């Protein structure tokens, strides 16, 4: 039953195809660097080197060179290129790009198989959490005592910005990346995504963007906060240009992924897979994809304008030229608030799924579950200015935005109803996914309630810009989304590897992370209430104890995450074998062998009911 592709691989890699068959991550990096150098050279030779924007112009061209070179080097343009030459891909080519019989090498390539892309996203997510986590530890170490200078102040200021952006990227892909790609198509009975090459393009564009973002630290950093507001962003060096290009590339990646996801779900569902029979997780992915399509282009526009302001003397955000930083702030938050729900919805969808399977009961009120996710997605587009209550921009709109923001607590409350309703009177199987699910509920209620405080303008007039806000959204991201992401990882890990994620290490990790989150961020709430602003590199003696507690808590989280990382890596080849359906679930991804073969299904499945009838003996169990 558990035949693996690797074992089937009898080294029959199709021959021919020349250079294109040798492309991988390595050639992409080489080509990226070569093109960056070429673009740098051309910019130096052709642009006027007097005056301030020269450095920014060169940096922008260099960054563009990296992106284009990376795309060419990984093979993103091979298909269109050959199509233009009138030699479209043969079947052998398509099989090659799908990674057939290629073993581990396919994970380093422009591979179109959605399951390979899913695994690549797991790795990308881990790398992002690693980088962001190291920066977080540097930040917390710097804040362990008043007047501590573990890192230089300018570097510290870059660290908070890069930590913020890296972690936002990590959160955006943490659930939707691995599981939206690996299991979602199987769950709806599709053989792959609608546009497999676009799927690979979206993954590798993200990788290229991450390369740019991390390079930022080496070229003067980004000492302006991750929200890169104007006019402060003008005081950043060429790191800012790299940041803007990162965002542009990232928006290309999410847009391509969003279109692909939506098209797949609209057109590739198998026979009988009506909308009401779709596993609830796929709804979370769908909503997030749709919301991302709406939200991220604002960020693309904002960062394109910033690049133009910096290189070409436009003045979209420059007040002396007739622009305003408030425009940047609006565009940023038009993206920034919906983005939180792009991050949250796949995690919530996964938790609904886990609650049902692990308690052996149907999702409680499926319609409420879908409706609350849709309501949240819709409302999230109408609340962006709550981030600008104290900016002085349009005070008249304060009341209306307070109204829309507080209404969000109604669909959010329904999440709890669905989760509790699903678990209630169930036979709740206490395995790793379930444990992290309970952790999610405990943290998410704190995240939600503190969010209501901040939506209230008289309170926001005190708490805005303080550590209270930082603690609030860390309860959202670390306390809630990360817990959901780990629950999803523990739940679907056996489908990827054929082995359980180590239960014992997973439980130890849970307690470290759970306790660490409470210590770190409850203390941080108190820092904020006492009056400590965000993004402080140094603070007065009155914030001493709470900051010390937050730092110790952060180390505790780190220990927990390292243990989880160890479990993830060691269980991959050595974990306890799980069989194809360890949780005895009924959705389609559990009906196929582990790991699922290329194109997933031998026979196209036909669906007659939703996957939550645990009381019936399923045909293919």
């Amino acid at each position, binding site marked *: 039953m558990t035949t693996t592709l690797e074992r089937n691989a009898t080294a029959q890699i199709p021959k021919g195809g020349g250079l294109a068959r040798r492309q991988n991550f390595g050639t992409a990096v080489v080509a990226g660097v070569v093109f960056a150098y070429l673009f740098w050279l051309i910019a130096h030779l052709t642009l006027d080197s007097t005056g301030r924007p020269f450095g920014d112009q060169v940096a922008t061209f260099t960054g563009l060179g990296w992106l284009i070179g990376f795309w060419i080097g990984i093979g993103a343009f091979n298909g269109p290129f050959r199509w233009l030459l009138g030699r479209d891909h043969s079947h052998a080519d398509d099989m090659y790009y799908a990674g057939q019989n290629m073993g581990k090498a396919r994970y380093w390539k422009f591979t179109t198989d959605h399951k390979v892309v899913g695994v690549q996203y797991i790795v990308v997510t881990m790398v992002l959490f690693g980088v962001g986590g190291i920066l977080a530890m540097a930040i917390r170490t710097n804040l362990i005592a008043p007047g501590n200078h573990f890192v230089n102040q300018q570097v510290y200021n870059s660290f908070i910005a890069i930590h913020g952006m890296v972690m936002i990227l990590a959160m955006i892909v943490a659930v939707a990346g691995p599981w939206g790609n690996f299991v979602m198509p199987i769950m709806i009975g599709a053989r792959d995504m609608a546009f497999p090459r676009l799927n690979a393009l979206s993954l590798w564009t993200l990788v290229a963007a991450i390369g740019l973002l991390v390079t930022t630290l080496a070229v003067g950093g980004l000492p302006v906060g991750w929200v890169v507001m104007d006019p402060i962003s003008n005081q950043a060096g060429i790191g800012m240009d790299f940041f803007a290009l990162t965002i542009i590339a990232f928006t290309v990646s999410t847009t391509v992924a969003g279109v692909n996801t939506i098209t797949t779900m609209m057109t590739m569902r198998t026979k009988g897979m009506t909308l009401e029979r779709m596993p609830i997780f796929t709804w979370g992915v769908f909503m997030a994809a749709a919301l991302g399509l709406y939200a991220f282009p604002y960020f693309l526009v904002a960062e394109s304008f910033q690049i133009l302001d910096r290189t070409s003397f436009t003045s979209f955000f420059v007040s002396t030229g007739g622009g305003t930083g408030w425009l940047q702030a609006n565009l940023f938050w038009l993206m920034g608030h919906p983005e939180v729900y792009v991050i949250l919805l796949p995690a919530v969808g996964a938790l609904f799924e886990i609650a049902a399977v692990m308690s052996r009961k*149907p999702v409680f009120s499926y319609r409420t579950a879908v409706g609350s996710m849709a309501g949240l997605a819709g409302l999230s587009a109408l609340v962006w200015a709550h981030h600008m209550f104290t900016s002085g921009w349009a005070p008249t709109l304060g009341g209306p935005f307070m109204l829309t923001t507080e209404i969000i607590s109604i669909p959010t409350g329904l999440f709890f109803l669905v989760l509790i309703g699903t678990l209630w009177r169930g036979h709740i199987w206490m395995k790793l996914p379930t444990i992290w699910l309970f952790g999610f509920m405990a943290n998410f209620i704190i995240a939600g309630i503190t969010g209501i405080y901040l939506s209230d303008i008289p309170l926001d007039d005190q708490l805005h810009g303080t550590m209270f806000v930082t603690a609030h959204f860390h309860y959202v991201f670390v306390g809630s989304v990360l817990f959901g992401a780990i629950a999803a990882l523990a739940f679907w890990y056996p489908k990827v590897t054929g082995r359980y994620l180590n239960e014992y290490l997973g439980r130890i990790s849970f307690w470290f992370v759970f306790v660490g989150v409470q210590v770190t961020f409850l203390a941080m709430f108190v820092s904020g209430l006492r009056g400590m602003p965000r993004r402080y590199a140094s603070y007065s003696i009155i914030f001493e104890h709470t900051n010390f507690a937050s730092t110790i808590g952060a180390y505790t989280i780190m220990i927990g995450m390292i243990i989880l990382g160890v479990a993830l890596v060691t269980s991959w080849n050595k974990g306890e074998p799980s069989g194809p359906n360890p949780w005895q679930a009924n959705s389609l991804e559990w009906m196929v062998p582990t790991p699922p073969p290329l194109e997933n299904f031998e026979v196209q499945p036909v669906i007659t009911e939703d996957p939550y009838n645990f009381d019936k003996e399923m045909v293919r169990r």
Partner: protein
Amino acid sequence: MSDQDNKKPLKLFFWLWAIITVAGVAVSLWAPGYLMPRSMSNNMHLTILTMVVFSVAAAPVAAGVYAASIYMLRTWSYRGDDVPPPAPVIRENNKVVASWLLASTVLTVFLLIWGLGALAVDNSSTGKNPLVVDVTGQQWVWSFSYPGTHVESNQLYLPENREVEFRVTSDDVTHGFWIVNMGVQVDANPGTITTIHTTPNRLGEFTVRCEQFCGLNHSFMDTEGFVVSTQNFNSWLAAQPQRS
């Protein structure tokens, strides 16, 4: 009850809920006043009061989630290594969904009414002869000037019980003007004037901080201020070096 229904007595749940609610309310009544900075204005008074009211309102909700979690873990958790038997099929319960919606809507409406009312009070100006203070942020100091007096200072002196109107701007990047003890803040933007007002109602020292990230020394962009009696305020003004 047959095992098929998997129903269990709810007494434990209600006890848990009641205990956590009581504890939550107690903390809500005590913590804001204890943890937040000393209140020195009408706005700060309202801020702390709102904090208390919202926390008290939130306590039973949070208690519900915690009590339900603990209760479910105690009552229905299944710790075997094999898959548990099927549980009762409960797909919909319109009464529960409707009451949940109703309760959360009522709570939200209450918070909204409180919030909008507090906002109106917060923004209201007495309109009687406010003291105007021009506030300018620049990397990384605050300066305060009093129109009509040629006085400019890096410390903020305010008279007691008289409304103050702050006209806030910046010389370089955006800063966040925040009087920590008075519950008011507004951004200082270059080329724009933003205003806030408040009425200091308690004598003593307070803190001004920058709450918008503004570059290298953002962490050090704070200064102290003093609320003094009207008489002392006037003599302070008179004693300042005049800038023409």
